[in-house]
């Protein structure tokens, strides 16, 4: 009896320790994982590019560390990495680049721990403005490539703060939109919808043809966030670009009728069976498979979709088809695309290789590396002297949608991370089949009230 009590006491202590140890690391939720999309670079990168070859350089022998979460064995990524090494070698013949690559979200856990313990890489690929705001990145405003940033590059949020430039935006990407199977649309005589009602009508026609209208892979929570955010965008921002600020200031509430309208749209789509039945238990690659097989006619995804779809069709041996693109819209046909840099490249403010690190960013900004990288990732240029062309005509449709109306901010720009996650909770709840009520938005309101101090307002 005595020994069993002692044993249980020990168990209690261990449990206590285990519970407390749950807070020993960190993670970044807002960073969307880099999907395994690939798109063969087929276009020439820069025709009118001005060569900005760094002037510095020396015979000094050193190892410079570069941190990234997305550089994998996709062909354009391999070429990008090799290109950086070759070009940097011209500048610093005795330098060695050490790639600190941790694929996916764990990279951001590691990066935070490294920054806090002053052991982070010298050159850092990152997402989110928090590294800038918290002072971990060097001011790069005087670097030569800054003058080459185009308008989108100059207004990019995660690379700028208080009028200074802290990183090179690695191409602009859309927040997401609707990619559709052109063959299915043509066979059914459908046109890309312009209003929410038309979107519903198109989905209904596809359903009647025995095809799943929209493929969702909400097991990856960021895809739920992507769908909700991109649909909220035209409703909230197309007629009132200050809507986000008004939410933050309390002039508007997060249970605003416009926000409710979007969730009622989700509810209607769910009730009408416009989503795949396993929407919440499959991840985004599985939903992309449904799309590639032709079992679903539309998918809401990011700019990597054309490349990913080609790869899925080739790997799966499915019948090839062209894909089209249209942005999510409101009832009146307004659109408001989200545009921003996907990856950003900055310099660790604590690095001992400051000039060498800045030179490496300069190398990456050179048109012969930057251009093919954009083509590979389906990204839009953010440097005025780098123009890219894509072999897939769908990118032109994306560019057209972006040029119609696009904004560098989104609802989450004015919410704390907890509020953005509460948005995901509402979305998955409604898509699972629960009827939407305005009370569902209360956790978002509470999050904003509670964690308002953690929001860095976009400038």
């Amino acid at each position: 009896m005595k020994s069993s009590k002692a044993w249980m006491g020990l168990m209690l202590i261990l449990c206590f320790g285990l519970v407390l140890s749950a807070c020993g690391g960190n993670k970044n939720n807002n960073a969307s994982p880099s999907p395994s999309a690939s798109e063969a670079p087929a276009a020439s990168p820069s025709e009118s590019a001005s060569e900005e070859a760094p002037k510095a350089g020396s015979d000094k022998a050193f190892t410079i560390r570069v941190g990234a979460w997305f550089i994998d064995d996709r062909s354009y990524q391999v070429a990008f990495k090799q290109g950086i090494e070759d070009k940097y070698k011209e500048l610093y013949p005795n330098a060695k680049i050490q790639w600190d690559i941790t694929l996916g979200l764990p990279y951001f856990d590691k990066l935070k721990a490294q920054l806090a313990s002053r052991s982070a890489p010298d050159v850092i690929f990152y997402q989110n403005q928090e590294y800038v705001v918290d002072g971990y990145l060097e001011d790069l405003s005087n670097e030569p490539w800054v003058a080459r940033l185009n308008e989108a590059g100059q207004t990019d949020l995660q690379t700028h703060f208080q009028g200074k430039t802290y990183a090179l935006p690695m191409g602009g990407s859309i927040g997401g939109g609707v990619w559709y199977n052109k063959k299915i649309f043509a066979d059914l005589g459908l046109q890309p919808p312009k209003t929410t009602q038309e979107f519903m009508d198109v989905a209904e026609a596809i359903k009647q043809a025995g095809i799943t209208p929209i493929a969702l892979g909400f097991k990856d929570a960021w895809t739920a966030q992507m769908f909700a955010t991109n649909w909220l965008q035209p409703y909230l921002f197309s007629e009132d670009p200050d809507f986000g600020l008004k939410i933050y200031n309390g002039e508007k509430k997060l249970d605003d009728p416009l926000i409710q309208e979007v969730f009622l749209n989700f509810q209607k789509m769910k009730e009408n069976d416009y989503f795949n039945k396993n929407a919440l238990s499959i991840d985004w690659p599985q939903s992309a498979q449904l799309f590639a097989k032709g079992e679903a006619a539309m998918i809401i995804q990011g700019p990597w979709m054309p490349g990913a779809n080609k790869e899925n069709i080739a790997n799966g041996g499915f019948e090839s088809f062209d894909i089209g693109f249209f942005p999510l819209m409101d009832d009146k046909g307004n659109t408001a695309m989200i545009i921003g840099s996907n990856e950003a490249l900055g310099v660790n403010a604590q690095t001992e290789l400051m000039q060498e690190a800045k030179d490496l960013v300069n190398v990456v900004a050179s048109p012969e590396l930057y251009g093919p990288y954009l083509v590979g990732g389906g990204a839009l240029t953010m440097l005025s002297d780098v123009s890219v062309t894509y072999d897939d005509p769908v990118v032109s449709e994306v560019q057209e949608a972006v040029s119609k109306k696009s904004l560098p901010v989104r609802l989450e720009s004015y919410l704390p991370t907890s509020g953005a996650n509460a948005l995901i909770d509402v979305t998955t709840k409604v898509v699972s089949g629960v009827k939407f009520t305005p009370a569902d938005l209360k956790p978002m309101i509470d999050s904003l009230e509670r964690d308002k101090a953690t929001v860095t307002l976009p400038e």
Partner: protein
Amino acid sequence: MPALLIFGMFFYLPFLQSIYYSFTEWNALKPPRFIGFDNYVNLLKDQRMKDGFFNTMKMVAFGVIVQNTLALFLAVMLNKPFRTKAFLRTSLYLPIVISLVVTSIIWGQLLNYEGLFNGILIRLGLESIIQDWLGTVQTSFPTIILLTQWQGIGYCAIIYLAGLQSIPNDIYEAAEIEGAKGFTLFRTITLPMLMTTVSVVLFLIVVGGLRLFELPYILTNGGPGTSSYTLFLAVYNAAFQNTQYGYATAASIVLAFFIIIVAIVQLRITSKREVEL
């Protein structure tokens, strides 16, 4: 002395730091900012924490009533002499040997809308009840609870079996001479003599239920909505998803004390009924 220093550095120091962090707003990048009891107050307003708490309580209650009873029943059955006893004992214990991560992934596939489980239901003519078991608010957490039973019952049954085998046979023989048999034997001899084991099993079930994390994390990450959140998952996501380390630390401290209090209460209740051999 060096051992004590190392222990202090890696156990007590982080613990004391945790208490400090629980009173701060801290995102791991900026220095912590003292905010008093705000984190503790906010716990009561957090939907994920609230749903996590109620789901965790459901889990504990189900474990104590169903898992415990079934485990005891199975142990009593397995304590009887029959031919396939060894095979059945091994089979019962097998789920605990397999990694939870592996079993979670397999169960996730089986319970998918197009998975084997729904396939079987269709073959049985039960097409009307098929659904995405982990993708609806009504079924996601009950499904997770049932999966924990699949793994937990065998483990508890083996512990009960060990307890049953430690009861001397001559006590049963004496009772049988006195005319006791069947359920009377179980009620008057087996159960009282097994109370120490009951205490241990209940402790494991209660603490295991309160610490439920892996299955909801891998299978649903708390969704749809917040329907399958548990307290541990809510703490984890507060830290690693919302990057609110101060808040998560406050939650983990409350959770730790909650586990200790529940465990102590449970031990007090069961230990009063224990019989010394």
